[in-house]
């Protein structure tokens, strides 16, 4: 499959824990086409996190091969992997991972600091991405002044700043209440419709149903790879949900401060 965006062949990852060797991933071969929306599922310890780290070029495989956009990244050194992450991958985390006491705009700009963009272009691009996630009026707010949903939108804008070929979202709704979760999933579906490949790690079956395909891991192996038949459309669901802006914000903030 020469057109695949992500292509892994027999991907193996072992960890050393003292003298013990942990087989986190025991040979995973999968191909993901550009424009797909894939949910990665599995209980903890199934190897899904390890798989995500490898897809995100945060780690190098012990054996096997991983091609991202036709580029073999399996044997790259740290500096090259950092460059791949910077240019091709956008990360969204469960706990948002925004820099505290730093404005939304500056948080979005962060990946550009490690690229070649000039200071003037940075602000402009960051502004455009913030507007794209519906936060044009919150540029100068600090994370503490934003609700959980808004913080996650800032994080998504940051993930998009370098126009990545792949967005990796690790439990992006884990710290959010249900309505906000749907809003965030709507955003991901919008992005996907615009052609961005999204890979989403979740242990919630409900959330996985917003994706188009699910990969299920167990004991370091890919055990199931299926199309999602009854796919949910977040925008439709949102229309049926009652609007509750203020309470939603309060809940979200409580959830954040507890995490």
């Amino acid at each position, binding site marked *: 499959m020469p057109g695949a965006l992500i292509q892994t062949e027999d991907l193996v990852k072992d960890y050393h824990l003292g003298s013990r060797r942990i087989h986190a991933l025991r040979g995973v071969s999968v191909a993901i086409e550009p424009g797909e929306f894939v949910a990665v599922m599995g209980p903890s310890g199934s190897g899904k996190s390890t798989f995500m780290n490898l897809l995100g070029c*945060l*780690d190098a495989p012990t054996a096997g091969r991983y091609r991202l956009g036709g580029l073999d990244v399996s044997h790259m050194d740290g*500096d090259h992997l950092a460059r791949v992450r*910077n240019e091709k991958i956008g990360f969204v*985390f469960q706990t948002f*991972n925004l820099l505290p*006491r730093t404005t939304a705009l500056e948080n979005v700009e*962060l990946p550009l600091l*490690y*690229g070649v963009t000039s200071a003037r272009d940075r602000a402009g691009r960051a502004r455009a991405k913030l507007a794209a996630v519906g936060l044009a009026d919150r540029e100068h707010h600090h994370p503490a002044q934003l609700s959980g949903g808004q913080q996650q939108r800032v994080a998504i804008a940051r993930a998009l700043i370098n126009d990545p070929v792949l967005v990796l979202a690790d439990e992006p709704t884990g710290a959010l209440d249900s309505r906000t979760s749907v809003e965030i999933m709507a955003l991901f579906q919008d992005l996907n419709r615009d052609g961005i490949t999204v890979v989403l790690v979740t242990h919630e079956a409900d959330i996985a149903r917003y994706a188009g395909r699910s990969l299920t891991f167990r004991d370091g192996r890919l055990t199931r790879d299926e199309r999602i038949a009854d796919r949910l459309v977040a925008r439709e669901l949102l229309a049926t949900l009652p609007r509750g802006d203020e309470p939603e914000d309060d809940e979200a903030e409580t959830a954040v401060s507890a995490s």
Partner: protein
Amino acid sequence: MNVLASARIAVRALRVNKLRSALTMLGIVIGVGAVITMVAVGAGAQARVAEQIQSLGANVIVIWPGTVNMAGVRLGAGAQATLSEDDAWAIQRDVPLVEVVAPYSRGTAQVVFSNLNWSTGILGVTPEYFPARDWEVISGRTVTQEEVDGASKIAVIGQTVARNLFGEEDPIGQVIRIKKVPFIVVGLLDRKGQTTWGQDQDDQILIPLTTAKTKVLGGNLAKGRAVGAITIKVREAELMKDAENEIRELLRQRHRLQPHQEDDFNLRNLAEVLQSQEAASRVLTMLLAAIASVSLLVGGIGIMNIMLVSVTERTREIGLRMAVGARGQDILAQFLVEAVTLSLIGGAIGIGAGLLGSSAIAYFAEWRTLLQIEAIVIAFGFAAAVGVFFGFYPARTAAGLNPIDALRYE
């Protein structure tokens, strides 16, 4: 990522914990301030000694009578007038290295002007005394040869004497009485200050040597051609040793001393004594600076401590930065710049503290302090180096983090 951007990130990170950053900087502030102050104090002391050398007159050798044995009894120095005017003129004639020779005698006397009394030193001098000591009058004139030949009753007075007898009044032309003998004041000497041994050189009256012998000074010095001491100015500083040896040889011959006999005079190169004092104070300055720089080092350890804490606290931030594309060297640079920023700001404040400290010492302790630009530059540079040195280990720790572990760090 350029240095400017790193510096901006660093300043923001430091502002987050203002008190902590300030306390961390304090070590560097104190260190740099202490180095600058201590060097200023040391340099002030050195300058004072150098000034005293100047006030003695450059290249000056002083000879005064030594001990003599008379019938097996050893008499104290100066008990016997072993130096004469003729010794002085012989030195002038026979030692070509010598520029000028000035024999003089010293005593003390009560001086009266109208209803004011002042006890002061009386110096009987010849015209050569003024060039020999590099001493000039600020008004009036010095003693002339005719006045020495004619034993004139004229006086050239020092600043302290003038202040005590005349206050604000112009002393020139006034008549003072020294041991009841009236003298006309013809000159007022320039200020000379204290000698190393604390004697006020401005508290003296200079009169012709002949007049001093006949009218003012008693004892041995009144007799014949004896003089209390001889001041000699040598042509060049490098020739001091040679001049000393030649003068000693000449005097021993003139005094008919056998090889086994000791000198019956003392010959001192005062500048040399002071130069060794200057060297001592230079060593002291370096010692003070060394002690002060220990506190800079301690300040550096403080920076390292806080940077290590900061790296631990910001592990997740480091993980995030790595995830979005920061390389190890970017993280290294970020924390290194932060440490150096701490030490540079601390150094800059320390310069202020040093300036303040040295002027406070000058004001309250009334010590002379002299700010040294080199000390300021070196202290500041050392502070920067401390920041790099002690910031490197924490920064490398940060750069070496695994992005996955860092992102998961709780």
